[in-house]
Each structure stands twice: as C-alpha cells, then as structure tokens.
C-alpha cells in the first residue's frame, strides 16, 4: 500500500488528464518547426474567418492579432470548446495542432518573437568543456538500442518535466536527456509513451517493461528508493502505451530484467500550496489551522497532510481523487490549502499561466532523488550517462535548465537511495 502511495506522488501526480501540451516549445529551431505547423494549421482551420495570414478587420470575427498573450488557457478553451460565434474544434483538432496554433497566434502570425522565448540552450557546450577529465566510455562502447543515439523513454504528457512536440520535446527531463546525450557524444532520440494516472498502472513495472522491451536505453524520472531498482519486481510486465505501438487486442507482457540507475539529477519534494483567499505565509503544516484542507486520497502527500496538520484541520478536511483536477479545484475555491508534490504544482502552473495559487517555502524533509534507469547488463552506458550527469551538476547546467523551464528545482541530497518508508518518516516535519 505504501509503495503505491509513493508512486502516486512521484508519477501519478504529474500525469495530466488534459490532452494539451501546455509548455512553451523549448528551443529556437523547435519553435520554428512548431510555427511552420502553425502556419499550415491556421490556413486549414482558421483563415476563412480570421483572415488570410491572420489579417482581419476584426468585425466579422475576432482579430487574433489582439489576443492577449498571457491568456493561453482562454485561447485553448475557445478553440477546443467554442466561444460565442467561434465553433468548437475539440473533436478534430490534434494536440500538436492546437499548440502550433498558439505559437502562430502568440507570434502574431510568425511576425514577432515568441513571448518568453527561452534563451538558446547553453548546456551542452559548457558540459563538454568542463568534461575533459571525466573520460567517460567512448560512444562506440555503449551498445545503445539505436546506433549512434541515446534513446530515452519520456512521458509525452509529463507537463513541466516532459512534453512531446511536433519536432523534439519540452520539459526539464527532456532537456536533461538532451544535454546528457550530447555529453555522451550521441544524438538524442526519444521514445514517447503515455503515462496514465490509473489505479492499475505501476510506474516501477512500467519502467522495467520499457527497458526490457528494448524501447530505450534510459528512462528518466525514476525515483531512487528501495524496491524500485535491482531485481525485477515481477517476472513479466506490460509497457505503457508508446508512440507507434502496434494496434492489438491483447496486452503484451515482456519478461523483465534487472535495472540499475545513474546518479540522481533532481529531487522530488512535497510543499504546501494555498489558494487565492489565503493571504499569509505558511511556515509549515501547523500554520494550516483555521484553513479548509484538501487531501488527495491515497497519496504520500495526502498521508503527510493528515499526519502533520493540526487535528481540528484534519477532522474538517475534505478528500479528493488524486490527479491534475485537484489543484484546479483549489484554484476554484473548493478548499484553501493542500500538501502536494512540487512538480505537480509546476505542472499546474503550465496549465494555468494565470494561476492564483501560492507555493510556500516549506518542504517536508522526506523527498526522493530522481535519476535515470537503464538495464543492469549495459553498465557502460549507465556509467557514461552517470559521468555526463555529474558534469551537468558540477557546472550548474541542471539549475540553468530548471530555470529555463521555470520549475522549482531541488538538487539531489544524500543518501541517494531512500530506504523503505516508516510512519516515523512521515512525522519528521520541523
């Protein structure tokens, strides 16, 4: 039971229900690719009402050149669900088309720079120059699943951590993987998969299955805790649905193999988030007295909330199903405060750029170091990735990438491997 709650914190909480990928595109070339798609998508779907090349008198329909650039969520809901005279497109517009339309509109038809365009990614060159002493295994010794490439498995709907793009990808994990591949002298390839926040899905088994199936060399976003690595947790398991997966009526189980991990590149932590009505700083769970507490059922953060908050607050708390809707409910005023995975908060902010929620500074001391997992039988590849990550950490690139992606970054902390949790671990709040 405890294991499942841990998993929910780390992965279930990050998996979005919303189909749209809301993060901005990562780099300049990717932006151009998305914009090119935006041009053709606009022609096909929008030009007849909003004007060829988005030039419009603005009387017969909205002049999209005036669309407020800080209201992406409004843009997307208007496109998908319709608004006033605007028809609904949700049943036929694909997520990447929606995103490309936003880029087209946000660049005023490709005539202006994308707002908040991130700086050109700095990491790889720096990493390589700082890297001279490390002498990782040569690329030829790595035996990756695709020659000359580092293939990583990433959730295509992982919000601030990973997001599929028409060209390339976005998110912190994606960027770390790209920097790692470059430091290893390999081209990055991504095998995207769908991360489902279902009760039945077991991210640990899924990681084992992705690797055993040979879909990728490394799986990022793996939490380092006892039982998540080493010998397989089961004889067979089914990988999650991946891009280009053949259509079949049956679920394919693959025999699992032992898994090892690189050093961690970030740490997942739990913090306190409050809604718009709470105007004061919250120093810790004890300060939640007097507030309506919302609890995500069956999650580690939920259990900690019930353990740490004042008894009267706990007694009056309301329980919700876990998932991305939880923070939207907080946004809507269903309750005042909650303990959540910091990454889930970052994900929510991507969905709602005008969020009124506040993440406070307090963190529960319990956290999980996040690393990349690979097959134990390919130690050279894991060692090379490990060396690359060490350099990225030492040169400050990881923090830069986190800043560029606008996520709350915490560096990994010793001990790297979290042992099995006890009730006492939950009660260690200051």
């Amino acid at each position, binding site marked *: 039971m405890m294991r499942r709650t841990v998993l929910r914190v780390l992965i279930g909480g990050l998996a979005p229900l919303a189909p749209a990928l809301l993060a901005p595109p990562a780099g300049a070339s990717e932006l151009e690719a998305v914009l090119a798609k935006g041009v053709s998508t606009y*022609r*096909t*779907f929008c*030009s*007849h*009402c*909003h*004007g*060829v*090349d*988005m*030039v*419009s*008198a*603005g*009387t*017969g*329909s909205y*002049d999209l050149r005036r669309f407020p650039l800080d209201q992406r969520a409004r843009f997307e809901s208007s496109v998908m*669900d*319709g608004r006033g*005279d*605007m*028809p*609904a*497109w949700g*049943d*036929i517009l694909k997520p990447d088309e929606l995103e490309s339309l936003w880029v087209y509109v946000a660049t005023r038809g490709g005539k202006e720079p994308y707002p908040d365009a991130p700086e050109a990614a700095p990491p790889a060159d720096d990493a390589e120059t700082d890297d001279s002493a490390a002498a990782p295994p040569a690329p030829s010794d790595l035996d990756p699943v695709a020659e000359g490439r580092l293939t990583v498995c990433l959730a295509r709907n992982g919000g601030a951590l990973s997001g599929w793009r028409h060209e390339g990808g976005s998110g912190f994990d994606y960027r770390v993987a790209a920097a790692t591949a470059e430091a290893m002298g390999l081209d990055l390839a991504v095998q995207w998969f769908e991360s489902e926040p279902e009760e039945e899905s077991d991210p640990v088994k899924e990681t084992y299955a992705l690797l055993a199936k040979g879909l990728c060399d490394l799986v990022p976003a793996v939490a380092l805790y006892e039982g998540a690595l080493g010998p397989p947790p089961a004889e067979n398991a089914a990988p999650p649905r991946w891009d280009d997966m053949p259509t079949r009526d049956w679920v394919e189980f693959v025999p699992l193999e032992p898994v090892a991990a690189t050093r961690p590149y970030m740490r997942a932590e739990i913090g306190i988030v409050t809604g718009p009505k709470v105007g004061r700083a919250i120093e810790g769970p004890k300060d939640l007295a007097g507030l309506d507490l919302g609890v995500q059922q069956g999650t580690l953060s939920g259990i900690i909330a019930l353990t740490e908050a004042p008894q009267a607050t706990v007694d009056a708390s309301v329980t919700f199903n876990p998932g991305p809707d939880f923070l939207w409910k907080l946004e809507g005023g269903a309750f005042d405060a909650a303990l959540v995975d910091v990454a889930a908060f970052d994900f929510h902010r991507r969905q709602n750029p005008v969020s009124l929620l506040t993440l406070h500074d307090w963190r529960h001391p319990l956290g999980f170091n996040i690393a990349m997992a690979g097959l134990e039988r390919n130690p050279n590849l894991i060692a090379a990735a490990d060396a690359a990550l060490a350099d990225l950490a030492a040169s400050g690139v990881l923090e830069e990438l986190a800043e560029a992606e606008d996520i709350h970054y915490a560096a990994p902390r010793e001990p790297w491997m979290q042992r099995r949790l006890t009730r006492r671990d939950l009660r260690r709040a200051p």
Partner: protein
Amino acid sequence: MKFERYALAGALALSLAAPLAAQTLEDLAADADTPENVLTYGMGYGQTRYSPLDEVDRSNVDGLAPVWAYSLADTRGQESFPIIHDGVMYVTTHAATMALDALTGRQLWKSMLDYPAETPRVACCGIVNRGVAILEGRLFRTTLDAHVIALDAETGEEVWRTRSIDFKDGYSMTVAPLVADGVVIVGISGGEYGIRGYIEGYDPETGQRLWRTYTVPAPGEPGSETWQDEAGDAWKTGGGPAWLTGTYDPELNTTYWGTGNAASWNAGVRPGDNLFTSSVLALDPKSGEIKWHFQFSPNDPFDYDATNEMVLTEIEGRKAIVHANRNGFLYVLDRENGELIAANQFVEEVNWAEGVDLETGRPIHTQVYHDAVAGEPVTHWPSALGGKNWAPMSLSDQTGLAYINTFNFGMNYKAVEPQYRAGVFFFGAEFSWEWPDGHRGALRAVEPTTGEVKWEQRSDIPRNAGVLSTAGGLVFTGAQTGEFEAFDAETGDKLWEFQTGSGIVGQPITWEHDGRQYVTVVNGGGAVYVLFGGDERLASVPPGGNVWTFALPGE
C-alpha cells in the same frame, strides 16, 4: 432584345380555384409581373432582379427615405433574400426565420434554429442564409447543419425537417430553396471541404427526398470518364457544390443550376475535365435528371465556381441564359440545348485564359493556367473569389444591360499535395491576395452579348451586394461600408445613398402596396470578403444586421 415574361393566362384560372391565402405554382411563375408580392428568389423564376415599378425614378430618388428598420439581432453577414406575400415579409438569418409586417416592420413571429457548436466550422465563407421559398402557406429553408425544413407561414411552426447529410463531413447549406414543378429543390455547400456535391428535390408536403443528383459522377456513370486520376478515387472528394439557387423555365420545365469548383483546388491530381464541376446543369425538376450540361472551367485549379445565377432572358429570339462566371467571362447560352452563343470578358483583368472558344465552349488557356496545374507558383486574375462573387447581378428589361458588382484583384497561388481530412479545409493550394493599387471592385453595366462596358462605378472596397434594376431607370446596390445606393441605369451617375449603419452584402428588392413603391434591403456586413479578405479598412464598419425598407415620403 426582348426580355420575356411568364404571364400564364391559362394558369390564372387554375389559381382562382386554390385557397385564397395560398401561393400556387402559378403565382410563383407570375412573380416578376406581380410586384405587390415577391414570391421567388431573384424576383421571378428567371432571376433578372428587374422590376416594372417606376414610381421611384431618376427624378425623385433623392427623396427616398427609410420607412422602418428591423434588427436581425445577429452579427453575421446577412445575405437573405426577402420574400413578400400578402403584406408579410419573410427573412432569415443563419439562426432564425422571421415574419414581419411589411408596412410597419413589426415582427409577427420569429422561429429560432439551433445547431451543434461545431457547425460553423464547415462554412467556408460566412455563416449566412439566403432566404426562404414559399408555396401554399408553407416556407422552406435550409440550415447550416444541412437540414431542409418547412415552416407554417402563418405561425412559424416547423412542419417537417429532413436531414440531408452529416454536416461533420464538411457539408452545409446556405441556399434559398427553389420551388419548381411542385418540388422543393436545394443544393449543397462545401466545395472547400472535399465533399461530393449534389442537388436534391424534396416533397413540399412531407419532406421526403424525391431525388438527389450528384454533380460528380461515380465510376461508370456518365461523365466519370472525365475523372482520370490513377487511384480512381478523386471523385469521392471531388467537390462540385451547388450553393446558389437555380433558375426555372416553366415552359421548358427545366431548372438551371450552377455547380461549384472541383476539389481540392489542385487540378493536377485530378486530371480530366472533372464533370460536372464548374458547370451549369439543366435538370428536370421532378426527377433531377440531367437534360444537358455546359462546363465553364474544365479541370479548374482556381476555385472558379459556376454557382452564380443563370439569369433567363431572350436574345435574338432564342431562350437564353446570361451568366457572369467567377472565371471572369460573361456567358450567353441557349437554354434549350446548352449551345454557347457568346462569352466575353466582363472584368478588368483575366490572365488564366485568353478567351473562350465559341466552337468548343472551352477556355483558351494561357501559361498561367498550365503552370498552376503543374504546381508552379503563379499570380492569377481573377482571384479565387472570382471576377464576380455570389452577389447576384440584375438584367434590366429597360436597358438590356447586365449590372454586375465585379471584383478586381488577383491571387498568388501554388498547388500543393492535398491532405483530405473530413470536415476541414481541403485546399491543396497555398495562396495569398494580390491587391491592385486603388479600386478593388466596380459596379459595371455590361452589354451581355458583347461584354461592352457602358459605364462603371469603381470603389476601393469592392461591393459584394446583390443588384436591382427598375423601370424607373434606376440601379440599386449596397457598399460594404454601409451605403445603400441608387445609380442612373443609363449613365451610372450616383443619384442617392443612405448610410445603413453596417456593411451591405444582401439583396435589394422592390415591391408595391396600395400603389406605393417600397425598396427593401437587408444589411449586416460580413461573409466572404470581410472574413477572408482581411481588408482592415472595414474595421470601422460594425457588423449587425437590419432589414431596411425605404419609400418616397407619403402625402
């Protein structure tokens, strides 16, 4: 040249036997000669939009003043043709049908329509409706989500409703139905969505579909040999919509219905003439059977619909059709057999064809056409919106001239591989506008058989409204900047204008009641030029439709 009438003396006796309130088929046939009523789209089955009324004339038109205005409570472009019977005016928007007291403008009833939120996306060029047809106490109209419905003219209650097809595959309806030989005839829209076009006949009594004639034949059917793509499936998405109302000759018992462009625009991927796209079909109204056809733009890459009105007249003793095509040529055809009598350029610039071969009826293509089909970038004139768009012209009995709102701009065009996806644009081409310096349009008075331009009134922003001519020596039309205008039919001098408060893309009519002549037009800017054209000078012209009715001040 003499313009004919359908004063059917024999039929008059029959109409007396009908109930007093009914509008019989004979009434419809006599519409052009009964100016107290306006019973058919285009003011007569021949759609000449010419009225014998002459109370308002050159000498007094400057005194024309509004009698009433009625808000349509709608901000879409308004193209509805008002029908008037027995002092009641019937108008439509995409969302409602309304009955008004024609003398006061007071609403008698309003019947709202509802359709799925996805529907407007399948309308390429404006969320419009072009009006009702009337027969024996019933109104017939189409809906954007491709239904044909009948309403009780007395109450506005729906009598029947028949779904023509699933709109989600790109089909829609904006057409005003034609009632001919006791059949309600409609045509489908969606030429830019990879549809397979058709025209249909419905039973006015029950709403049962009596026939459907596809404008694109299936393999093995007559005309299928003109679809020569290797895969053999281009016909399935071959286009050929039929979105404007056909004309009808009761003597020949034939309706003349124009068809739209072939789809996608990329003509290179559908070699062959692509019958019966960009054509006129002569149909038997009872069966939908094609009696003859004439194709204006074979294997068309430029979106040159031939849906524009097939105006019926008599030329040199022959029953003729006069038709101003999007492709820039004004055609005169013998409507008994489809023989080409004349074809002349009626716009300033045409560069895709040198002319029309009178022997074969085919355009004489220039390199621009061949390059376009081959996938080379070209600049072609007229643009995809045509030398004349949908806005109907008028053919005056008095002057013999056709009064046409013409477009004067081109298009930069390049064919690309089309990607079919149900319910979204299926262009197969990339394009942008080629604007001239100065005027983008002109109201032109054109001699039908020679193409000679007697006069023109240029405008920077092109007019896209219907035209009306009268025995008072007047031509009425409207500007997209809101002015309702009257011109001298002989000289083109502007004699009067009135600012209606929103752009005009509707259809002016004139009618009389108790000896007083009225002129009615629906305003409400929008539709294809406003939406697609991106003319920012129109930013200062608000949308919002009204029905305006004018007359000379009373005693």
